């Protein structure tokens, strides 16, 4: 037991927490932007897979790591555009369309990967992002090791949380986005176009989700393989609810999750006789528990999953 508690005080655990949280932060922010505009994006799992593949492939083909992230964003936005077209102007079921996007994006990612990359016994690798200690700040004891000695995409994720929170709360764009998720008719009555706002929100949100996938292949690992997203997208969808659609709480949720994950990874090496599957189950079970805990209290955007058609109520 003491050993378990000792783990909690090591800087390496907390550094790992931030690392594990990074793809979740991207994913949950992306999902949050879509949902705040009133569109549930279950394409997330596939979009993350697509982002992982495209980001990795760009680097494998000789691109810069940052170019990899940029291409991942573009690929994510393309998938998001498709989801937006189907659900916003056409008003199709957001559930089914999102699942379709997930099936399509992952299938396409695997297909293109197999088509363009020769896979031997082991998947080919790239040189991933290295930890980049921020001069000065990384010297702070403990905190320096935990927060300021991460790979660059993690810094991007953290900055993005603040940016999205500020955008939603303090800019006309953010207000229009929130209003679109609450009552698109009100947006239209004020002379703005809710259809266009939703389409852009879904595209931008999807681009950010794709970054979460790209982090996996360009920073956390150095190769791409099928099934690597492992339900992180679905966990993000649960996290958005857990976070009551707020960016700050979303960051907190992602960190809490990552803490459990990092903790169980270390616990596996300490505690013997417990099958590893039980540890692996923890994040999924936790997601469900989190959903149950907040479900009744959540203030859902009122127009979430409501298709908007002009002049119809």
């Amino acid at each position, binding site marked *: 037991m003491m050993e378990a508690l000792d783990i909690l005080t090591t800087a390496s655990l907390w550094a790992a927490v931030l690392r594990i949280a990074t793809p979740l932060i991207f994913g949950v922010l992306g999902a949050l932007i879509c949902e705040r505009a009133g569109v549930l994006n279950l394409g997330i799992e596939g979009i993350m897979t697509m982002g992982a593949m495209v980001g990795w492939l760009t680097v494998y083909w000789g691109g810069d790591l940052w170019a990899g992230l940029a291409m991942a964003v573009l690929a994510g936005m393309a998938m998001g555009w498709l989801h937006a077209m189907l659900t916003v102007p056409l008003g199709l079921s957001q559930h089914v369309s999102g699942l379709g996007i997930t099936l399509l994006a992952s299938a396409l990612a695997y297909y293109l990967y197999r088509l363009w990359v020769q896979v031997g016994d082991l998947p080919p690798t790239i040189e991933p992002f290295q930890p980049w200690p921020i001069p000065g700040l990384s010297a702070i004891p403990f905190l320096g090791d935990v927060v300021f000695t991460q790979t660059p995409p993690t810094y991007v994720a953290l900055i993005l949380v603040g940016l999205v929170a500020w955008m939603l709360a303090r*800019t006309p764009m953010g*207000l229009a986005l929130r*209003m679109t998720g*609450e009552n698109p*008719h*009100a*947006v239209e*009555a004020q002379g703005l176009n809710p259809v266009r706002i939703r389409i852009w929100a879904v595209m931008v949100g999807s681009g950010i989700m794709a970054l979460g996938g790209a982090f996996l292949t360009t920073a956390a690992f150095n190769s791409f393989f099928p099934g690597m997203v492992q339900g992180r997208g679905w966990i993000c969808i649960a996290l958005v609810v857990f976070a009551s659609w707020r960016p700050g709480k979303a960051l907190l949720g992602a960190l809490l999750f990552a803490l459990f994950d990092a903790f169980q990874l270390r616990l596996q090496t300490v505690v013997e006789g417990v099958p590893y599957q039980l540890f692996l189950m923890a994040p999924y079970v936790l997601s469900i528990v989190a959903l149950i805990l907040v479900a009744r209290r959540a203030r859902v955007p009122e127009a979430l999953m409501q298709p908007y058609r002009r002049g119809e109520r």
Partner: protein
Amino acid sequence: MSGGAVLELEGITKRFGALVANDDVTLSLKKGEVLALLGENGAGKTTLMNILFGHYAADAGEVRVEGRPLPPGKPRAAIAAGVGMVHQHFTLAGNLTVLENIVIGSEPLWKVGSDRDGAARKLMQLSATFGLPVDPEARVGDLSVGERQRVEILKALYRDARILILDEPTAVLARPEAEQLFRILRGMAQGGLSIIFISHKLHEVMGASDRVVVLRGGRVVAERATAETNPAELAELMVGRAVARPKREAHAAGAPVVVAKGLSASAGGGMALDAVDFEVRTGEILGIVGVSGNGQAMLGRVLSGLARLDAGTITFDGRDIARITPRAAVRMGIGRVPEDRHAEGVVGDLAVWENAVLERVRDFSRWGFVRRRAAEAHAAGLIARFDIRGAGPATRTRLLSGGNMQKLILGRNLAAGPRFLLANQPTRGLDEGAIAAVHQELLMARSEGAAILLISEDLEEAVGLSDRLQAISKGRLSEPIAAEEVDARRLGLMMAGVWETRDAV
């Protein structure tokens, strides 16, 4: 161009499929004028205003503001030209603040940051000028209906509207609130604003407008200066034919059928019920009148078996029905006409015969299998007996008109000869012909001995049909008064929550 017209609509035509909603409509509005657009439900008033505001594009015709044509289908252009619209169903977001609801759309989307303080200052200034007090930081979801309407009006003023359109502005207001609204509008008009309000209430039109345009079947049928017309003339112009609502004939009521004592229920979001008492007797109609949103919905839900009571008892022929389920209610002979026929009355995508037997499908089945032929025969019977037009048993129910859909719902309840009938807003949104038919059926059921509880926001209907009336306000119910003792003033006060209680000395 006529002199002094700030707004002109010329030759506006709009079709929805086979329906012509607006047919070559031409009208104009002068500066500082209050124009009433009068018409029945379905006359095309709202469509016309939606075209003016750019929600719809007209199939033909032109809208001109101060002589300049508005591009069709662009609310943004209408707002920029100084047109503001207060929608009947408020276009507000309940989870956002008053200020947020008002400033949205007023700043360029790509602006970095937002001038909250400046916006709040401008809002408070408008609020003071026009006598429309609001709290900018309040959550709209926490406001009363009257306060929300104020926010809607301020929203238009904030965008510097010079022409204000109000769609059925008093539908949700009590008489005193409505009177205050019209006083404020009058003041605005004197200050130079031009106002169009849509209504189907004659006394409002007579009291508050300078000029009336009457719309019927999508066409302008008449235009009158308010001072030169009278309610009788307007009524005839509006309806177009002499449709007389059936008259209630006095007859003595019998023994109490439904007795409710001390009903209290808490609603999630809506208005709750607070110690409500009433009794309905055989062969009488008890009318519950009130302004929308004062607990009628909850009362309807409780009596339909859809909501649970916190306290109180209801008996039906002496049996306890406080915890009744919808299915048990049907079986006991309680008929229920729901408030919203599309949302609760019928399943639009099912056939007429399926909706006709949905409540009692087990009576039309054997060993778990639906006896379709018997059910269709039953539906055909209802269609014939209740004069449901434009439908056979196999028609998809959503293709029925509102009136025929209501006749189907009424029919499936009345066919079973209910001892008690709950009729919740039975004629909302219907035209005069359908209203007369529904009233006829209700009165017939009454003379056959049914006890009927009529919940209505239409005063004329409630007074015309009911033997006794009770007003509902903030979830409380007044003492009953006999229909013969009713006068408009007393009823208005009762609906605003002012009545003498028996206990008060």
